[in-house]
Structures are given as C-alpha cells and as structure tokens.
C-alpha cells in the first residue's frame, strides 16, 4: 500500500487551489491548441513550452499533464467533426466517429470519446503509479552497458516497427543523432559540428528542434498544399449519451484500455497498433448486422479508450527509464531537461515528490478534462472554422515567439527556420518524426553511457557486452531487425487484405 500512500501524498500536494488553477489552464490551453486543425498533442506541448518558463518545475509539470490530456482530447474532437484525422492515433476514431456525426449523432460520439478517454486515462495512470516504482527500483541497478543496449533497442524498435518504411525510419533516426552531436563534447569540451559558430557550441535547444520540426515544418508543408475548399464542419450540441449508448460503450472502453496500456508502455508500441486492434476487435464482436460502417458507437469508444490508455502507458518507460517512446513523451522529456531534471532510472529516487505530483496531476487533469470539455464542446467545434491563413500565421507567430523568447536571440529564430525546412523535407519524403526526435534526445545520453562502459573496460568493445541483461537486450535488438524483415517478406499480401477490410 506504499504506492497508494505516495499517490495520496501526491494528490494532496497537487490539490492546492493554485495547482488546480494551473491544471485547469493546462487542460483548456491543451484542448484549445489540440482542437485546432493541423496541431497534434506533440506540437501542442512543444508550442506551449515557453508558457511555463517562469513556473516551478512541479507547477509546470502539472500544467503539462493538463496540456497533454487536453491535446489528446482535442485531437479526437477534430477527427470526429472533420473527416480528416490530424494524427495517426485518431485515424480509427475518425472512421466511425465521423459517420456518427454525419448521421446527427456527433454529440454521442464526442461523449463516448470523452468519457472513454477519462476512464482509460484514469485506469492507465493508476497502472503507471503501480508499475513504475518497481520498474524504477530495478532500473537503478542497470549498468551502463545494459542501459546503452536498452536505448539502442528503443531506437531500433521506433525506427523499424512504426511507419511504412524501415529505411525512412532509420534516416529519421540518424538525422536526429546527427543533430544531437552538435555542440561541445561532454567530456573533452571540444566543439563538434558547429562550423566554428559560438552560438551552436551550447548545442541546439531541443525545444527549438521540436517547434521547428512540428510547428514550422507543418505550417510550411500545409502552405505548399493548402486545401482551398472550405472544410465541412458538422455542428454539435452539448455531448450526451442515452442509456443504450452507455450500455454499448462500457465494454469497448475497458477492452480498449486493456489493449492500449501495454502497447503504450513498450517502445514503439505507439497508439496506432492498439487503436487498430481495438477497432477490429469491436467490429468482430459486433457481428455482421452491426452498425459498423454506418457509425457504430463501439467503433469510437474502443479506439478512443485504447488511444488514451496507451498515452498513459508511455509514462512507464518515461518515468522509470527516462526513455520517451512517443513524440509527445520526447517533448515532455525535453521540458524536464530544461528544468535540470535528469531523466533516467534515478528520477524516481531523486525527485519522488515531482513524479508523484505529476502522476496525481494526470489524474486531476483527466477529471478536469471531462468536467470542462463536455460543456465546452460546441465552442471547440467552432474553432474548426477558423480561417486557415490566420490559423497557420498564428502557429508561425507562436513558434517564432517560442524560439525567440528562449535567449532573445534572432539566431534561434534562424535555427528554427532551418528546422522548419527540415520538417518540411521529412514530410515531403515520408520520413517519420518520432525517430528523429528520439535521436536528438537519446543520442547524447547514449554516447555518455557508451563511453562510460568502454572507459571501464579500457576501450575493449567487450565492455559493452559484459552484463547478462545487455546480452538479452541485444538479442531483442537482433530480433527486432530480423523478424519484421522475415514477416514483411511473407505477409505482404495479407497486409493488403487487412487494409481492404478497413476500407470496406
């Protein structure tokens, strides 16, 4: 019951009036930004980073918890009311959700999404609170060789499993690793890849990278391909559900949660796979005469719960190992780093108060989300009509403000534009963002662990392999590379069939 006590302590410190206010501001800002078309949760968090500059670490974490869940919820609102999901995690929600909305059941679709998100998020956060401490306890004992191996595994999984093309995944990863090299070498203080520039010697602020790649890249990419026709927004009243909708929703919520959490907690699980599995499961369980294809509420409830449960699950590797497994987690990690908090296995031991307050605020943020957003849904829906030139001009404005406010140096804006160009290029060439961001964040950490391990062994490569756990993880790395290739060769025709099933 130790965990429970700690969580209650966390709740107590999070439940001051001031902190509740920060959580509410976070939820509202997060939803506001998340609803805006073209802005996903990762971009929402990245754009809102500067807002928390003047706050204490605890308060800013509380605000981030709100922004995080708010941004997630905002994304699902967009995909239900417009038939064009902004991020891959909402694709499955959009299939049935938008059909429900077109049949005049937008209110029920939004309600089942919101309540399902709340339930999945709450269960997920509780699971995080119960799992993380024991994992972190083990994680402290992990030596440099094994830690290096685990980071390698996360990178390989994220690059090779997610996305359509392994080659592009690795290109993204290596671009990120190269960006991570820029700056002074940590142990000898020699500049690397700075081209003699003093400004680059400090390294590139991860916030500038994230905002550049997410926000500026997205704005430029959209500018090149802006849809000139006005979009079709379905009007919505206050979300509510009838008795029948509750009856049909609660099982998919729980099944979605069960599917989503484990996928969120392992590297490269992401939200795409569990939302897809949840959709397929609900569809199979509903049988042939179901409403699937015409707007079945189960098809919104399940994937939405899976999405949020996996969003909670990602906190397990983030808090216990310092490993971000989604783009949003990577940005959150960057936020922690900017407060001098060292992510990694020692986080739980060094900053217990911060971690427990964060977990408690996730619970609070989740509850506030439900309380604030159900009544506000019609207002959020109106945001979807915001004229696109002003919307993207606003995104560029806040991106520039965020970069400029870090050091008040126009040089940072120039760097931002360069990363905007990179963000444009990776969208053009279909290179996934997550491996890139992961490379920027984990690359330097990985080098530290590698050199630590090799220093101990006097430069012998065997120093990387002298722990049992490391060997085990390397075996997983090999599997992660080999298995998809073998399966890809054999199952390529099946994947096409699967795709057809979804389209049907």
């Amino acid at each position: 019951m130790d965990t429970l006590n700690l969580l209650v302590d966390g709740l107590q410190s999070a439940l001051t009036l001031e902190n509740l206010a920060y959580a509410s501001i976070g939820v509202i800002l997060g939803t506001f930004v998340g609803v805006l078309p073209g802005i996903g949760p990762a971009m929402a968090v990245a754009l809102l980073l500067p807002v928390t500059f003047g706050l204490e670490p605890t308060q800013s974490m509380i605000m981030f918890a709100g922004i995080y869940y708010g941004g997630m919820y905002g994304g699902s609102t967009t995909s239900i009311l417009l038939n064009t999901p902004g991020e891959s995690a909402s694709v499955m929600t959009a299939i049935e959700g938008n059909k429900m909305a077109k049949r005049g059941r937008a209110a029920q679709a939004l309600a089942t999404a919101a309540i399902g998100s709340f339930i999945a998020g709450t269960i997920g956060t509780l699971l995080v609170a119960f799992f993380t401490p024991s994992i972190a306890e083990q994680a402290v004992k992990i030596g440099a060789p094994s830690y290096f191996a685990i980071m390698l595994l996360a990178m390989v999984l994220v690059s090779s499993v997610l996305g359509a093309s392994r080659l592009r995944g690795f290109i993204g990863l290596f671009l990120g690793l190269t960006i991570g090299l820029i700056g002074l070498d940590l142990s000898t203080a020699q500049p690397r890849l700075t081209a003699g520039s003093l400004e680059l010697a400090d390294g590139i602020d991860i916030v500038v990278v994230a905002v550049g790649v997410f926000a500026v890249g997205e704005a430029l990419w959209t500018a090149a391909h802006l849809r000139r026709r006005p979009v079709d927004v379905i009007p919505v009243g206050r979300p509510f559900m009838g008795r029948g909708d509750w009856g049909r929703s609660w099982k998919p919520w729980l099944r979605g949660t069960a599917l989503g959490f484990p996928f969120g907690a392992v590297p490269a699980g992401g939200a795409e796979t569990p939302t897809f599995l949840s959709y397929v499961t609900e569809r199979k369980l509903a049988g042939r005469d179901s409403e699937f294809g015409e707007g079945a509420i189960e098809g919104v409830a399940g994937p939405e719960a899976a999405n949020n449960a996996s969003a909670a699950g990602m906190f397990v590797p983030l808090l216990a190992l310092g490993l971000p497994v989604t783009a949003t987690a990577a940005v959150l990690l960057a936020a922690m780093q900017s407060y001098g908090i060292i992510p990694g296995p020692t986080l739980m031991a060094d900053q217990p108060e911060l971690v427990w307050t964060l977990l408690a605020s996730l619970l609070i943020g989740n509850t506030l989300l439900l309380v604030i957003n159900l009544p506000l849904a019609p207002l959020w829906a109106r945001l979807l009509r915001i004229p696109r030139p002003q919307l993207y001009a606003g995104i560029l404005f806040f991106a520039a403000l965020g970069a400029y406010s870090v050091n008040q140096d126009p040089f940072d804006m120039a760097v931002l534009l360069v990363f905007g160009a990179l963000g444009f290029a990776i969208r053009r060439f279909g290179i996934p963002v997550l491996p890139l961001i992961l490379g920027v964040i984990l690359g330097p950490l990985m080098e530290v662990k590698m050199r630590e391990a090799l220093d101990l062994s006097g430069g012998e490569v065997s120093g990387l392999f002298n722990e049992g756990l490391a060997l085990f993880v390397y075996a997983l790395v090999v599997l992660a590379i080999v298995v998809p290739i073998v399966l890809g060769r054999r199952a390529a025709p099946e994947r096409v069939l699967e795709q057809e099933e979804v389209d049907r």
Partner: protein
Amino acid sequence: MSDATAPELEPDVGPERRVDRSQFVLAAFLAAVGLYTIIDARGLNVGFGDPVGPRVFPYLIGTGMLVLAVLLAIATARGDVAEEEAGEDIDLTTPPDWVTVGKLAGIFVLALLLVNLLGWAITGALFFAGSAWALGSRTLVRDLIVGAVLSVASWYFFYVGLGVQLTPGILDGIL
C-alpha cells in the same frame, strides 16, 4: 530493405515506373551530412587515458548516414516513392505551391533580421499579418490589428507573467 518490394504492392498509375528524382537529392544531402560528420570528427583530439574519445560516436553516426544514403539511392532507382504526409488541411492532389512557401520563408527571414531593431511587439504584428497575407488572406487591416493584439499581449504576458522582458526595440519606454 523491404522497400524494394513496395512497387509491386502498389502499381503506379503510369505504364512506366515513376522515379522520384528529388529523392536522389535527399540521398546526396544525407551523404554530404554523413561525410561532414566524419570529417569534422577527424579534427577532434583524443586525450591521454581516454580510451574512447569524442570521435567514435560521430564516426558511427556518419558511417550509418552514408550507408543509408546509398540504400536510399538504390531504393529510389528501383522505383521507391515517398509517401507524402497527409493532414486535415492538406490537399496532396495539387502540385506544391512554392510561391507561398517562398513568401513565408522570406517573411520569416525579414522578421528575424528586424526583431532586435523594431522590437518584438512591432515585428510580431508585422510577422503575423505578413504570414496571413502570404497564405492568402486579403483582410490586411484586420490581420494587422489581430497581429498587434497578439504581439503586445504576448510581450506583456512574458514581462508581467514570466518576468522576461522581450526586446522592446523602438518602443522602448512606451511599452
């Protein structure tokens, strides 16, 4: 890599395989980055008693980048086509609108050159209105007003709320 099999799964519309030429440019860029990383690392000194030194990691990354560049070039030559990113406001059926992108980039550069001179409040307002104009808005006066409200409000938010004074520029003493 599995990409070699991709064209068989998705037959192209045309009778001939379309080769995505700009992917060769990307491959060349990646190769250049990889090469530069390696050359840059050669100039680093390894201290005594440092068995690893600052060179090894860049060497690994640079080499990996070169390998990826070659793989990408091969895949492209075999007909690998990039899957462009879709989105809520994105219409991939039209050719890219380089004029708009160029205008936006130009306005961005102008803003970063002017920001220390004019200050955030003025630059921000012009930047917002300019970007909206580049993106096709024709309500210039309204955009200027919205931009001014945003930039002045953000200036005061940072000053009062966060204790950070953004550059006041020529409005020094007025704000």
